[in-house]
């Protein structure tokens, strides 16, 4: 079974803090994704990566950056957290050329920015 783990289940940060969310997968998948999930808005793609050191902007990249130094690890960085970044953050992975199909998700990190 694919296992996707996220560094924290719950996180509380203050406005202006730099926030790191980490995702690790153990199945050698090429593709990794970061989403945020908000009531009524569903899943929105922030960034994705199809290879080490490669990254592509998703639908809502503003205020976020990512890092993928190793194949199994994909980090989401909030450079200066704001209250409108309070959300559930979900990491996902997939393999193969159909990058977005058949994604495997982590358990999520509920981030609250005060």
């Amino acid at each position, binding site marked *: 079974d694919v296992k996707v783990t996220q560094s924290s289940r719950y996180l509380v940060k203050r406005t202006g803090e730099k926030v790191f969310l980490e995702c690790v997968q153990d199945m050698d998948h090429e593709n990794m994704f970061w989403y945020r999930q908000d009531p009524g808005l*569903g*899943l929105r793609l922030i960034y994705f990566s199809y290879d080490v050191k490669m990254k592509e902007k998703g639908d809502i990249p503003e205020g976020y950056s990512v890092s993928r130094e190793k194949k199994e690890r994909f980090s989401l960085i909030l450079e200066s957290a704001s209250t409108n970044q309070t959300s559930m953050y979900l990491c996902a992975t997939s393999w193969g050329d*159909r*990058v*977005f*199909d*058949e994604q*495997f*998700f982590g358990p999520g990190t509920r981030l609250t920015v005060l």
Partner: protein
Amino acid sequence: QKEVEQDPGPLSVPEGAIVSLNCTYSNSAFQYFMWYRQYSRKGPELLMYTYSSGNKEDGRFTAQVDKSSKYISLFIRDSQPSDSATYLCAMSSLSGNQFYFGTGTSLTVIP
């Protein structure tokens, strides 16, 4: 108009009922269709994956695609309390470079 429309519910049914969950879409380029199930405080998990039109069955679950109407459905037979979750549809184009999730339908199966 949104690319993918999904009624958010909530939908509440008695145990044993047949459940029908639906999504409509506007982009005729979509060829691959997925259903994900998301339990409370968990990440989504892929439930069904189909290509083009027709039906696909897996146990109590049937995914149906009607491309002429741009309409997909997930049927759950003999629903169980353990089916209580949010169900998200998703779809992608033949090339794979267009992909959308629906916003999800919340389902509760009452014992």
